């Protein structure tokens, strides 16, 4: 009796949860379905829930009327380069902070904790001036360079390296291995999952970064997709199918990265928040 009542309440709970989840993804569904409608179908009353038959007119328009492929290229290039160097430099620095003894180590670690608190937005003005004085406004280097240093990644990697028993390094040193070999041959493979996780969230974060590309680029050909799409959208005016279509195109890579590497994304997000 008691058990039956419990499962009945449980069923209601599950049902409410599913309704809530559906409501939560509705905005995503709605923008995706709008992208497959014709412009006239987007503003009919009552709204059409299903984009049937699907209409690719909006996507064709986006491809012909915006440098979307150039923006894809820009964003992929920037996000991939930033991710590669950011992770590589963070791994190396974290290894030294975790395993090597040298003067200035405590100072570096303390400065990382402060650096990680500095809000990027507050540094935007001097960074822009700096890039301007180097003639790097509207360039890939201007987009990439300021996004590479990630104190948080160093802190996370250091925590993981700290948990590797010291014997691994000592034994490898006796066998004549150098620290570079130890890092890339032992420590990195032992911590593949967190390295992977941090790489994916760095990639997603760089792909989605809005403020810095907004500030450091203004020529159409150098924009990244999240910034570029807003510029053509305002030029197109009231054209819901088209603005939705470009939004769908802009979010495919990060959404796909999340759906494929769900577990790693979760792990990376938690590690970055200070929880393992």
């Amino acid at each position: 009796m008691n058990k039956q009542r419990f499962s009945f309440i449980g069923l209601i709970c599950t049902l409410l949860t599913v309704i809530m989840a559906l409501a939560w993804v509705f905005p995503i569904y709605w923008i995706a379905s709008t992208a497959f409608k014709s412009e006239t179908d987007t503003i009919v009353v009552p709204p059409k829930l299903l984009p049937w038959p699907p209409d690719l007119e909006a996507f064709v328009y986006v491809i012909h009327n915006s440098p979307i492929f150039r923006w894809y290229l820009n964003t992929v290039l920037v996000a991939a380069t930033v991710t590669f160097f950011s992770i590589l430099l963070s791994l190396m620095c974290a290894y030294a902070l975790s395993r090597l003894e040298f003067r200035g180590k405590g100072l570096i670690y303390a400065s990382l904790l402060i650096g990680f608190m500095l809000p990027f937005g507050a540094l935007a003005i001097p960074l822009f001036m700096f890039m301007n004085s180097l003639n790097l406004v509207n360039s890939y280097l201007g987009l990439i360079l300021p996004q590479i240093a990630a104190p948080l990644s160093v802190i996370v990697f250091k925590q993981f390296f700290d948990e590797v028993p010291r014997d691994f390094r000592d034994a490898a040193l006796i066998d004549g291995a150098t620290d570079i070999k130890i890092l890339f041959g032992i420590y990195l493979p032992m911590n593949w999952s967190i390295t992977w996780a941090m790489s994916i969230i760095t990639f997603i974060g760089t792909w989605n970064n809005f403020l810095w590309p907004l500030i450091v680029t203004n020529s159409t050909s150098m924009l990244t997709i999240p910034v570029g799409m807003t510029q053509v959208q305002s030029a197109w005016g009231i054209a819901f199918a088209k603005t939705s279509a470009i939004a769908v195109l802009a979010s495919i890579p990060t959404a796909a990265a999340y759906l494929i590497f769900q577990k790693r994304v979760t792990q990376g997000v938690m590690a970055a928040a200070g929880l393992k």
Partner: protein
Amino acid sequence: MPQTERNASRPKRRTGWRIAWFFVAPFLLFYGLFLIYPAFQVAYLSLTNSDIAGQGHFIAFANYLELARDPDFWASVWHTVYFIILTVVPNTLVGFLFALLVVRLRRLRLAVLCAFFLPYILPVSVVTTAFLWLLDANFGVVNYLFSSQIAFFADPVWAMPGVAIVTIWWTVGFNMLLFIAGLQNIPIDLYEAAALDGANTFQRFVSITCPLIWPVTSLVLVLQLILQFKIFDQVYLLTFGGPYNSTMVVLFYMYREAFQQNRGGYAAAVAIALVVVIILVSALQFRLLNTRRK
């Protein structure tokens, strides 16, 4: 120090020093150039009347004196605080609720988790595109459902709550993840023991779940607080600070002073004010994390 010991330890130490710097130097180069140097630079700029190209001269604390009497700046501080009030606690509570809903699921768990978390990984401009469309005054679904014609982002009363709702929808998945981790760390035998003692579901929730999840709750609250102080992107895309400056938040005010009014020095003073507040709140976060570890 005895001579022999010194000689013995010396060579090892020196090679260690060189290798160590080989490992840290590349990171430190970028870190120094693009984080530390700009941090000092913004502090210096705040004491000058520079334009956005960096041309100007030293004027000591004049920017700060002006800032203290600038009604637009204080309005932006109030708008930021208002945004924080609208987001921090609600976002934490919704995150907790979603975590509670997700952890009891079995087969549907992954799908539901995905639904709640997916918005978090979308670019901000996609999020705002979706909501500008959903909340459109004439053709939006929300106004259709309620038979209303509210222009959410053009109405001074609705604009900030609108930005807050979008922000919660976008970021709540992050809070939910932290709460799920926290809930899973609560030992299951506590619940079993309480059930044996005759505690019902509600009693177990109040006397086991709530106190044991508190460390995560406080962490989420502080992380949210730091994050929401930095509100910029959503405002830039949804309202551009309007209508009638009703969503002019601190970082947007800085952006406007710097890149539209060409007042780099004054904007730097705004930035410093923001940095000071964020560092104070972050210090609180470290204390929380440290007490957690203990």
